[in-house]
């Protein structure tokens, strides 16, 4: 598996990569002849040692797997690309596919294959907005501030809303990871939402134990956030396990805050996290990433976000590796039935720039990505990395005729931000939203 993987610096760091190009392709030939069912009988990480493996095996759906059960991986790629394999066919097999099958077949697929097949899949989730409908692109508004200054955060939220951002979630990464700090930010988000009757869900991306504590104190939790990885050991270093995730989901469901649906988990992942936590079991980073999607799938999430270039060049060296990883993650997640979005991003020590992000953005638009990030000017001043701007999302919407979540689009029109054609109204009087600044200024 690892030797068949496209080049990633993290696989060299882990010492699992192919040592020559020829060896890499030889590994792919071998992989192509492997029956899909192999992955049900041979675990890459032992069943006894890892609860993620147990989850994968114990929840496998043999009925959904039946139509593809006799295929080799090579045949499976051909099957995925066939005309007859449409949106419904792909939906029907999703619960029969294990992460290892998805990861393995992706290693046999070119970028265009990953795009074409992902584009056939539709995964729709709902809370207060409907995200993932064909022909739609949503965004997470990410209004971070280095000191969690509520005014500074509100200013970024306002800027985002005026640029049509926030229909996937308004989600803040707090600088201070504590219950009081997170609660204060959640109250700010909830106030703004109610004041303008915004159809959005909010989230403060704090550790799940903090979120549980906030729920106990009746705080306004919409989505439950957690970073997850593909092995039990890596999840332990994050301070989580499957039981804890279940507990938090149950607690948040009991609040009944969704209006159009009840998908309420928000997971973030990224290739390299298991190796970074020293918990990779000799498996390549892309396969481990896909195993994290099995964890996500079990909790019926609203959003799954692969934060593709944040981890740095020791895992994904340059624009080419970041682009490949973004397409793989999106494809594998969608194939497993997940509402995939992508934080299209890089750090300043990676060999990448905004043009590489434009490329990945456009390719993911063609793949039908559910959501991307909206960061003011693409520059996150708290986490110190570059992602996509509000304007990047609007470029993609304009280029491909993609629309916001329907509930949010209506709201943008009501507020006078969009015209009837869903274009931004220039030079018009301030919308009621600008009143928000009166209070921020206080």
């Amino acid at each position, binding site marked *: 598996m690892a030797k068949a993987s496209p080049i990633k610096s993290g696989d060299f*760091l882990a010492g699992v990569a192919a040592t020559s190009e020829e060896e890499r392709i030889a590994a792919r030939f071998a992989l192509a002849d492997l029956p899909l069912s192999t992955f049900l009988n041979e675990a890459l990480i032992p069943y006894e040692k890892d609860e993620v493996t147990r989850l994968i095996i114990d929840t496998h759906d043999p009925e959904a797997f039946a139509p593809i059960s006799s295929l080799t991986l090579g045949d499976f790629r051909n099957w995925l690309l066939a005309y007859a394999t449409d949106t419904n066919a792909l939906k029907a097999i999703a619960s029969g596919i294990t992460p290892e099958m998805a990861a393995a077949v992706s290693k046999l697929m070119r970028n265009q294959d990953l795009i074409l097949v992902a584009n056939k899949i539709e995964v729709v989730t709902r809370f207060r907005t409907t995200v993932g409908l064909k022909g739609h692109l949503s965004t997470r508004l990410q209004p971070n501030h280095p000191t969690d200054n509520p005014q500074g955060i509100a200013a970024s939220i306002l800027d985002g809303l005026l640029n049509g951002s926030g229909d996937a979630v308004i989600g803040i990464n707090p600088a201070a990871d504590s219950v009081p700090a997170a609660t204060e930010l959640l109250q700010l988000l909830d106030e703004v939402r109610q004041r303008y009757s915004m159809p959005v869900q909010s989230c403060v991306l704090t550790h799940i134990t903090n979120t549980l504590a906030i729920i106990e104190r009746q705080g306004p939790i919409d989505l439950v956030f957690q970073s997850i990885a593909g092995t039990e050991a890596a999840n332990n270093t994050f301070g989580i396990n499957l039981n804890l995730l279940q507990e938090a989901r149950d607690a948040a469901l009991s609040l009944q805050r969704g209006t159009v649906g009840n998908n309420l988990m928000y997971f973030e992942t990224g290739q390299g996290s298991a190796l970074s936590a020293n918990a990779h079991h000799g498996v390549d980073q892309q396969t481990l990433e896909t195993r994290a999607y099995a964890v996500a799938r079990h909790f019926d999430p609203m959003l799954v976000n692969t934060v593709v270039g944040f981890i740095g060049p020791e895992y994904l060296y340059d624009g080419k590796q970041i682009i490949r990883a973004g397409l793989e993650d999106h494809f594998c997640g969608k194939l497993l039935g997940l509402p995939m979005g992508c934080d299209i991003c890089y750090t300043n*020590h990676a060999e990448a*720039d905004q043009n590489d992000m434009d490329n990945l953005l456009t390719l993911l638009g063609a793949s039908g990505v559910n959501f991307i990030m909206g960061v003011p000017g693409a520059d996150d001043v708290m986490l110190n990395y570059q992602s996509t701007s509000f304007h990047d999302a609007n470029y993609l919407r304009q280029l491909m005729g993609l629309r916001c979540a329907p509930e949010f689009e209506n709201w943008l029109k009501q507020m006078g931000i969009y015209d009837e054609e869903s274009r931004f109204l220039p030079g018009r009087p301030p919308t009621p939203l600008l009143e928000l600044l009166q209070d921020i200024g206080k």
Partner: protein
Amino acid sequence: MTQSLKTITDLKKLRVITAARIGLTRAGSSLSTHEILSFDLDHARARDAVHLPFNATEITTALKTRGLEALQVQSAAAERTIYLQRPDLGRQLDESSKQQLNNIQSQNSLEFDLAIVIADGLSAKAIHSNAIAFFDEFLSLLPAHGWKLAPVTVASQARVALADEIGAALNSRLSIILIGERPGLTAADSMGIYITYAPQKGRTDAERNCISNIHQGGLSHKEAALQLEELIIAAFQLQLTGLPLKKKLKSIL
């Protein structure tokens, strides 16, 4: 202030409360030319900072003119592209540097209180602009304590944990590394300081304490020196660094 906000670009007036790039002017739904160019300029500075060659000789000379013993060492990452992809190599000394430090110890078999390392990290520019100015502030605080200083090492292609090996080789109770932080768009020359009690290979980041964001416009050299002094005193008292030390300092403040 808010009375004058009429359009989206007026949001720029709120830059006093957030450094975020808000209120950007649009061309269609895209960014205007001016906005693109100013972003690119900041990114260009950050990229230059990552790849700027480290002038270790100049730093060493500056230390020697202050009457300090100083020597240059090199990590096992021979050049920048390797350094960026192999953080493990940036955490080890190369063979000749190892030898050099071992020689110091085998000749003298000394014990030191502080082993200070000055390292390029991800921004040589941060060290060029801040290390010596910080050092001058820090040196002025030293006479009150009588801490025994090991020869200062100036390390190229170094990660934070390289100070573990250096501190252990020099037989020092504490290692202190001044290192260039990953350049951001706001500051490409920000320096961080990490201190580790009883340095030895295999120490984790949870066993260190950190002072970050030292640059013009961030934490001043003087303030950073005072914070470091406080950390050192507490570390020697508790005989450890890391989370417990941080908690202890919080409870004092």
